[in-house]
């Protein structure tokens, strides 16, 4: 497998800071993207409110939040979230969100997610991570598939978006499957 890394070909992970929340504000205020990420369209909020929200979120004993940054210019382009961290059963719920449309469709979501999974499995030694994705969110499903996810079910009409109950899919990531594709996802295979 190799030593767990916090740096991949194009990205690195670090702790989440207030200035990252300012960039995350773009995501939380985006009419379409916020619904995909938070399961409901968000009421637009100020950068100060996002900073406060992120501070409170990080205080929770079962939450972790890391910034995903570009190596070339040290700009934070996304966030890796972990919630429902179960230290007894060693499972958690994961999320990986890029802040803006410009970062999408370049493989950065897969690379950033793989960085988070590498640390969760190969440094923190968690047994499984679970995720929930809007069934119609094909790009997010593709990132999960490329990083070794297995589909384990779905929740019918579980999210309420733009006035409609929408189905989700549930995925599990396990270290064995992730480690088979780890190097390729991190861009460390050559």
């Amino acid at each position, binding site marked *: 497998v190799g030593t767990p890394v916090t740096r991949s070909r194009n990205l690195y992970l670090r702790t989440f800071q207030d200035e990252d929340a300012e960039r995350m504000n773009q995501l939380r205020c985006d009419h379409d993207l916020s619904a995909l990420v938070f399961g409901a369209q968000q009421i637009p909020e100020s950068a100060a409110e996002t900073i406060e929200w992120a501070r409170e979120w990080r205080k929770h*004993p*079962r939450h972790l939040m890391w910034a995903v940054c570009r190596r070339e210019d040290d700009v934070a382009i996304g966030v890796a979230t972990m919630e429902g961290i*179960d230290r*007894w059963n060693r*499972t958690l719920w994961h999320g990986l969100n890029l802040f803006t449309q410009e970062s999408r469709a370049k493989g950065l979501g897969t690379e950033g997610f793989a960085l988070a999974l590498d640390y969760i499995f190969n440094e923190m030694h968690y047994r499984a991570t679970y995720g929930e994705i809007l069934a119609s969110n094909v790009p997010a499903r593709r990132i999960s598939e490329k990083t070794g996810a297995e589909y384990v*079910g779905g*929740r*019918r009409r*579980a999210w309420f978006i733009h006035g409609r109950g929408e189905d989700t899919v549930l995925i*599990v990531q396990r270290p064995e499957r992730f480690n088979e594709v780890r190097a390729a996802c991190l861009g460390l295979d050559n």
Partner: protein
Amino acid sequence: VSTISTEADVRTLLLASDDDLRSLWPQLVHELGGYLSALYLLPPHDPADLIAWRRVTGHFLFLPYADARWLCGLMNVDERTPASEVLWLTADARVGPREREAFLALVRFGFESLGMERVEWRSLSAESCAELAKAAGMRREGVFPLALVGPPGEQDLILYGALREEWERR
């Protein structure tokens, strides 16, 4: 305890008092440590954690009947979605008439009193649980592999869900 009174006449369920939670907490932790952890509680902490958890989250916690030594409830009541999740805190997977009555009262409470459009349950992988879910009109929607570690080894959690129309025509 105080009896809950709703339009749906959920006579079976008794709202658990803070004293009930204090009294039951050590037993719940002993029997259900891993399961409580999966429910985002942190055993073996103080029973005050359970009381605070209820206050902060707004979860409904019930004694299924007087003198019961286990708890059930509705958690994650999301009025916007609107959806909710059955909470079933007992180590005993056997389902008798009282357990069945309590389970159906909980789901009825969710649909008919709280106006939920979806009620779900994450249960142990036992035939008795599958039958109970089916009685409430629930379908098996998924599985969370390796969710629990316990004396029997690793266990999966099974996800069941019912939509309002499935509850009504069960």
